[in-house]
């Protein structure tokens, strides 16, 4: 009896040792994992050259080490562009570019959680309003544009600044404008009074389509109304950035802006539409004006039901509506295996006229690259969106914005549904934002 178990144990041990040995040299799965482990080892060596002894390479790695690939995370629209410039980069530098598709909506959290675990990207594309949270988490590194600041718009650069440092290379600045149905409204109105007059003259289901009503709260698309009389969310100073203690939602100016919206709602110019309602009504030709951003250009170009144009946001009694400007940029991860190479990639392969134009063509949002803006502005539609980008304020990039979207969207939603008046809406929103920030 005893002997049999001894034999069995011996057989199992031998077999498993054999299998383990095979798996590390033959089987495909095992192969990739082990090489991955090896690369991590070899590359952490130079990364930790903090130790004062190593001016150059440690003596052990005499043969030139394999360069680790440059890992770029991008969403499905931008990834092909990065892939198209990858061969040129590999050709010039010997560094392979690995483009990983990551959904834009989950990018920020993925970077925050996977970066520290060593599974994150070297470079990724993200929105500017992540900069506060990512920098607070220590997930991103500043980059030095090396005197090339002049190639980008000031809004683009400022939006990606945090605590005085420049994080990321801006490449998109986008803001909402108004699409209008040229069959219903031949001449684009310049003021809100002209806009409502144009609607009075025609028979239409909805005059001005604004997302954020019905059942889908939306703070973003209401920003032009909030700002028309000087309302704001957080106080901003170009030197010190946003002041989260200075919440401007409950101010008379903000309430005045919300009251304008309330009047337009009660007078029947703005129906309670969520994002899809506003879009569908416009696409069916049942809406004269539709307030939204350049990301919908594609769906309008794909249809032939309505003839359309784009106009800037109307003025109200001489006041300008200032939409949110969204900036997107290329971030450099704080956990990049080789930050120097990643930076070279950004400065010499991404920040070029050709790549910036290709990125614009892949996803036609406004550009943050001045040469690209000049090229694309020959098209009046792009030029109109560019004007919106210049009149707007860039979205606050502080993490506290997380506490703003919900309450502001909720209260504008209630206002759009006629459940509360402008003053209550703005006071409620202001109080909720204050409490959530204080409590969080």
């Amino acid at each position, binding site marked *: 009896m005893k002997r049999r178990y001894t034999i069995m*144990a011996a*057989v*199992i041990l031998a*077999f*498993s*040792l054999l299998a*383990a040995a095979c*798996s590390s040299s033959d089987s495909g799965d095992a192969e990739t*994992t082990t090489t991955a*482990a090896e690369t991590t080892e070899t590359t952490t060596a*130079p990364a930790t*050259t*903090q130790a*004062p002894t190593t*001016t*150059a390479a440690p003596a052990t*790695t005499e043969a030139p*080490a394999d*360069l680790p690939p440059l890992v770029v995370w991008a969403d499905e629209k931008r990834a092909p562009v990065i892939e198209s410039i990858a061969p040129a980069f590999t050709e*010039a*530098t*010997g*560094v392979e570019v690995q483009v990983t598709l990551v959904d834009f909506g989950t990018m920020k959290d993925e970077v*925050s*959680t996977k970066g*520290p675990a060593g599974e994150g990207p070297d470079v990724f594309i993200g929105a500017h309003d992540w900069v506060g*949270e990512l920098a*607070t*988490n*220590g997930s991103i590194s500043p980059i030095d544009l*090396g005197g090339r600041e002049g190639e980008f718009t000031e809004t683009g650069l400022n939006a990606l600044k945090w605590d005085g440092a420049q994080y990321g290379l801006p490449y998109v600045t986008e803001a909402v404008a108004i699409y209008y149905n040229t069959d219903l409204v031949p001449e684009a109105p310049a003021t809100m009074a002209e806009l409502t007059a144009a609607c009075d003259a025609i028979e239409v289901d909805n005059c001005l389509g604004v997302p954020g009503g*019905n*059942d889908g709260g939306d703070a973003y698309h209401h920003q032009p109304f909030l700002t028309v009389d000087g309302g704001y969310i957080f106080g901003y100073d170009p030197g010190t950035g946003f002041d989260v203690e200075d919440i401007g939602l409950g101010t008379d100016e903000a309430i005045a802006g919300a009251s304008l919206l309330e009047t337009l709602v009660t007078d029947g110019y703005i129906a309670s539409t*969520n994002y899809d*309602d506003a879009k569908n009504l416009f696409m069916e030709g049942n809406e004269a004006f539709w307030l939204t951003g350049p990301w919908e250009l594609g769906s309008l170009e794909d249809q032939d039901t309505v003839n359309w144009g784009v106009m800037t946001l109307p003025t109200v009694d001489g006041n300008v509506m200032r939409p949110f400007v969204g900036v997107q940029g290329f971030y450099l991860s*704080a956990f990049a295996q080789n*930050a*120097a*190479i990643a*930076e*070279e990639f950004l*400065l010499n392969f991404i920040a070029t006229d050709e790549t910036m134009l290709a990125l614009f063509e892949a996803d036609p949002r406004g550009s943050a690259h001045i040469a690209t803006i000049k090229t694309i502005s020959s098209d009046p539609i792009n030029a109109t969106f560019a004007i919106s980008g210049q009149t707007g304020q860039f979205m606050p990039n502080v*993490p506290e914005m*997380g*506490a703003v*979207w*919900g309450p502001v969207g*909720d209260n504008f*939603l*209630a206002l759009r*549904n006629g459940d*509360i008046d402008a003053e*209550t809406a703005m006071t409620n929103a202001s*109080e*909720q934002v204050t*409490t*959530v*920030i204080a*409590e*969080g």
Partner: protein
Amino acid sequence: MAASLGNWGTGFWVRLVLLALLDAVALWSSLILIADGSVIMFLGLVIGVLFINWVYLWPRTEALRWITPGLVFMTIFVVIPIIYTSYVSLTNWRTGNVTSKEQTIDFWEAKVYVDPEAEGTLFDLFVYTDDSGDPDGFKLLLVNEEGQYVYGDPRLRTETAIEDGVEDEGTFASGEEIPPAEFNGSRLLTQREVFQLSTQVDFKNLVVDTDSGEIVILGLSQGRVVQASQRYVYDEEADTLIDTVENRVCSPGEVTATKGNFVCDDGEVLVPGWVATIGLKNYNTVATNPLIREPFLRVFLWNFVFAFLSVATTFALGLLLAVTMHHYRMKGLRFYRSVFIIPYAIPAFLSILVWRGLFNSSFGTINRTLAPLYDLLGIDPIRWLSDPTWAKVTVILVNLWLGFPYMFLLATGALQSIPSDILEAASVDGATGGRAFRKITFPLLMVALAPLLIGSFAFNFNNFNLIFLLTQGGPPVLGADIPVGHTDILISFTFNLASNAGRGNNFGLASAITMLIFFLLLLISAFSFRFTKRLEDTYGGS
């Protein structure tokens, strides 16, 4: 099955090979785990594999052999997530505290202080080699816009300054090629070679000393004259960060609020910090912070009502249909059964979005169809998704559509398993129709179905998909202290709290609430199973 250990049959060898395979995989993964330094994972793996080997090799473990696969899956998919969640609930894992302590120290040590006054000339950087094969044998050529250049050896910022680092200085004549292919006997490196070198040399930490100050290397192609120094130095002995610019000492926070961050002696808390355990603080927050407690109660009540009504309505409809279908005079059973399964066959994720469109109060099919009725009655159209009460009704209705096929299937199966002779005996005794159903069929059904109803309750209690896709918790509760919706259930409320708290994410707090939900469900289930047991004692065992 006599293939126990006693004989050397096929079963024995199959078992042996499978075990050996398992051990091989385990051995191989444990090597990786050791290399990664994950001690806990390694220990867990070793203990687990030893246990499995023991169970399948030693005699007298027959009972364990049957249950071990179940135990393994339970451990991987139930126990480990719970342990991990409860661990997270004891930490301060949130925006600003996402890295390990080592990574945090690295972060602060990598902070370079640049004197804002001294930011100066920008240089282009070129790398030259003497081709001696010595990894140290490279030199840097820095050229500014005017063609002035510096050529010499760099050093790491952490090292002391080199006295005679600069080998050559001067100005290129205007016609000269920059960079020259050969300089002072050294060869210009190609970009590819520079990149190769960058895996061995930390370029971003290089400095060239000149008479007029340091030129800090910014990357692989640029340098700048600046006054730069490492701002924070970590003192391993004292476990403190020393701020060399403002001359202060920062030590790890002592009190719960600052645990996981360095706190400087002037009171400033350095963010980012690291993930640290903070005891029961998150649970304390749930219990004491009125901003969470108030919505928590409101959400909990609706959550309970929602789960209860979901089970009650789906079960009622499913049972009604099953009983109808069960009648012996029913024709076209196959057809009806197929039709009733349809909601079950469409992915809920899709059908919820479709329902959301149908219930759209302004443009949805339902309100467009009902428009003449509204006109006739002279009332406003029902706001299915944006009115607090109707939104709740809508949630229940959509869940009824999604859930009744499951109950229908269950009830059909259970009905068929009730022996017909019992009902025949009952009818002989005079109990027919409704009375027989109430007194005999239904109690017998409940014996079989009650545990499943409890499971359904637990599932609906955490039915995140439905709420998130249909209403996102909305419509908002107006005037609440913090944003909360009328149809928010605990799990969707927790999700919002985790992802949109005051400053970004708060995984620790969200995990604490998740654990509370878990214990709550555990309690409800335990209580209900007891009740079922009583049911079984009364009616079971026939």
